[in-house]
């Protein structure tokens, strides 16, 4: 089929087959994994800034006690859409973008296995977010029930635009599922000869496991939003007690999706860090096999811990004990990973280039987030922490200084390979240090106000929280502004302004992607390399 079309083109236009099409059509119709990877990454960065702007609105309102800038309903829309955009628009597409760019180059494949589906899974995403964002401008406002859309907030008490929220989540889900299927098929069928399972790079392993989590739980999310849709518009009673339903059941189904979802957002990060630390410690990764098994154990355990989000719903004590211990069990494989990263650095010839700085920051700060997670897992104390800023501090440490820092580390690490030029090191240093300091000013005091009892998702607060909130907001604005440095750096690198990068880029780097020229040619590994 494609051969026939190509022949016709050759006859009519004397087309240069190997040249990249120019203009908007190149991006609209592209099936090239590198183009689609770039599209995903830029899209995710735009969403990161959009969701970040909403966080700025939240922090501006919380700068002082009292209501001053936005009305509470709009504040709730901001917290809701900030969460949805950061989860589904920033972190997940960024990882899919990295998967597109890197997996074929890492396993020695010419492209993703299903290139046309790849194009589609990207191009439906902007429409999903257009629908979601447009709902903010409708009468009654957009979704204001929190990104977790608990019933009956999302059914009985939600605005008329809830259908738009539901459909946008459906489209995001379809996009993620298609992306995940593509990753699995690529890794399963297209590894270069000699690349056995236990020779696969860690990023490929973590993404393979993530992709299985995605196809297991994204359909459950699709199911639960459909139930919300029919409850709200078609008179069903899945979550309506008056009709025989149960609102607590919403939380069970949602978190059956939601807990594996948090590992979807962190497992690829583990993979990235497992590439960067060995490179700059100039030692092979300590305990490769245990890393693989730890990743798989985390993924399996993620299915049996969902109710730790629901300790205060009135579960029997036996169930609370089960979910508490199962949750704590996850810290064992996670601890193995942190141990292995530290052991990789032990007595290595370490240098501290920007990707390494982000990776080390990841290890330290993600571990802080992990420890507050362990505190939250303890059922009796969770009754105090539940729905306070302590929870907000916890998941921002694992998602911002965890997932987002790993994505930035990955961007710095592979950017010279993608663009062919080294990034501007001065800007990069400013970006790293400004982000590191401001992110801790932003999120660390949240632990204190949370323990003191400040509830989350509230536009106003008691006077005793005023000083900490002022600092949190200042940290927030500084962290937001720091990302503009990153934007400037990325634009500079994409315009190829900078020192030319060598093929190897980093002297300790290992893997197939470093054996091809920088910048990576449009088509790579058309004949598969042989892995010894």
């Amino acid at each position, binding site marked *: 089929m494609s*051969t026939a079309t190509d022949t016709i083109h050759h006859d009519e236009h004397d087309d240069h087959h190997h040249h990249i099409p120019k203009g908007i059509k190149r991006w609209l119709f592209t099936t090239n994994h590198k183009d689609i990877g770039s599209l995903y990454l830029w899209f995710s960065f735009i969403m990161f800034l959009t969701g970040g702007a909403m966080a700025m609105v939240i922090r501006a309102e919380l700068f002082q006690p009292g209501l001053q800038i936005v009305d509470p309903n709009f504040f709730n829309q901001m917290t809701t859409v900030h969460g949805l955009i950061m989860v589904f628009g920033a972190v997940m597409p960024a990882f899919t973008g990295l998967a597109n760019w890197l997996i074929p180059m890492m396993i020695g494949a010419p492209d993703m*296995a*299903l290139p046309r589906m790849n194009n589609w899974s990207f191009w439906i995403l902007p429409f999903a977010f257009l629908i979601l964002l447009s709902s903010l401008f409708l009468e009654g406002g957009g979704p204001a029930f929190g990104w977790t859309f608990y019933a009956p907030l999302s059914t009985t008490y939600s605005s008329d635009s809830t259908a738009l929220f539901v459909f946008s989540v459906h489209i995001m889900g379809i996009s993620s*599922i298609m992306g995940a*299927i593509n990753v*699995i*098929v690529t890794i*399963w*069928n297209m590894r270069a000869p000699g690349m056995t399972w236990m020779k696969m790079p860690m990023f490929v392993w973590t993404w393979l496991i993530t992709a299985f989590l995605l*196809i*297991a*739980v*994204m*359909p*459950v*999310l*699709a*199911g*639960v939003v459909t*139930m919300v849709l029919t409850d709200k518009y078609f*008179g069903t009673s*899945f979550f309506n*007690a*008056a*009709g*025989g339903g*149960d609102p*607590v*059941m919403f939380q*069970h*189904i949602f978190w*059956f*999706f939601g807990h594996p979802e948090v590992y979807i957002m962190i497992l690829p990060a583990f993979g990235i860090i497992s590439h960067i630390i060995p490179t700059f410690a100039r030692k092979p990764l300590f305990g490769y096999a245990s890393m693989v098994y730890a990743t798989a154990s985390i993924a399996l355990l993620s299915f049996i811990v969902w109710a730790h989000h629901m300790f205060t719903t*009135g*579960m*029997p004590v036996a*169930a609370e004990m089960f979910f508490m211990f199962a949750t704590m069990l996850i810290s064992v494989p996670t601890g193995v990973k942190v141990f292995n990263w530290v052991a990789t650095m032990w007595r290595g010839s370490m240098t501290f280039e920007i990707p390494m700085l982000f990776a080390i920051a990841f290890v330290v700060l993600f571990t802080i987030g992990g420890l507050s997670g362990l505190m939250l897992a303890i059922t009796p104390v969770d009754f105090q922490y539940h729905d306070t800023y302590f929870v907000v501090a916890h998941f921002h440490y694992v998602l911002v200084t965890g997932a987002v820092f790993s994505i930035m580390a990955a961007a710095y690490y592979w950017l010279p390979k993608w663009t062919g030029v080294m990034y501007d090191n001065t800007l990069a240093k400013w970006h790293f240090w400004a982000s590191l300091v401001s992110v801790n000013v932003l999120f660390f005091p949240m632990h204190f106000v949370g323990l003191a009892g400040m509830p989350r998702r509230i536009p106003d607060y008691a006077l005793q929280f005023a000083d900490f909130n002022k600092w949190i907001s200042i940290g927030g604005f500084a962290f937001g502004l720091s990302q503009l440095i990153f934007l400037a750096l990325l634009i500079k690198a994409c315009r190829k302004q900078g020192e030319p990068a060598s093929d190897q880029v980093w002297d300790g780097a290992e893997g197939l992607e470093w054996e091809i020229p920088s910048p990576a040619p449009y088509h790579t590994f058309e004949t598969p390399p042989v892995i010894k």
Partner: protein
Amino acid sequence: MMNQSTSNNPNTKLVTKLVVIVFGMFTFGFALVPLYDVFCDITGINGKTNETAVVYEATDIDRSRLVTIDFITKTTTGMPWAFEAKTKQIQVHPGELNQVEFYVRNPAFRDIVGQAIPSVSPGTAALYLNKTECFCFNNQPLLAGAEATMPMQFYVDPQIPEDVTYFTVQYTLYDVSAAAQKVAEAQAEASE
């Protein structure tokens, strides 16, 4: 040259399997609804009680112990009825048949259909509360300004564990006028 036929393409086979998993998990999401109900029915952990009347069989009345039951009431947002338990607390012997009454008044200028939903706390006690007659089994229509007394008959299963000596039954009242109207219209259409 790529000359593989579609059926032999390893990608097609794998994609088919993965798509089956996706649809399987979508179905599983909905299957969780009946599974949840069955699970809660068996364990009683969500505090739901029997939704249709049980027949009281003169079982052995355990006169050796007493169980204390609180009755509390609540109306949801938008439900204007006054609703209260005439008996706030009762002490019963497991096995004996008891009756309590609830008072409702519709202060609104419109007719309203109400639906009461019971919930037992701690949830595990729900398994042992058997209602032989309850206003919660049906919709309760009340004309504008009208008032009524609604009975509820029950017995506590003598199998109730020794350590459960005290539980609370909460009735939450919902305004289901809109839904009841739809049902009535549908029935009227069907009979025509």
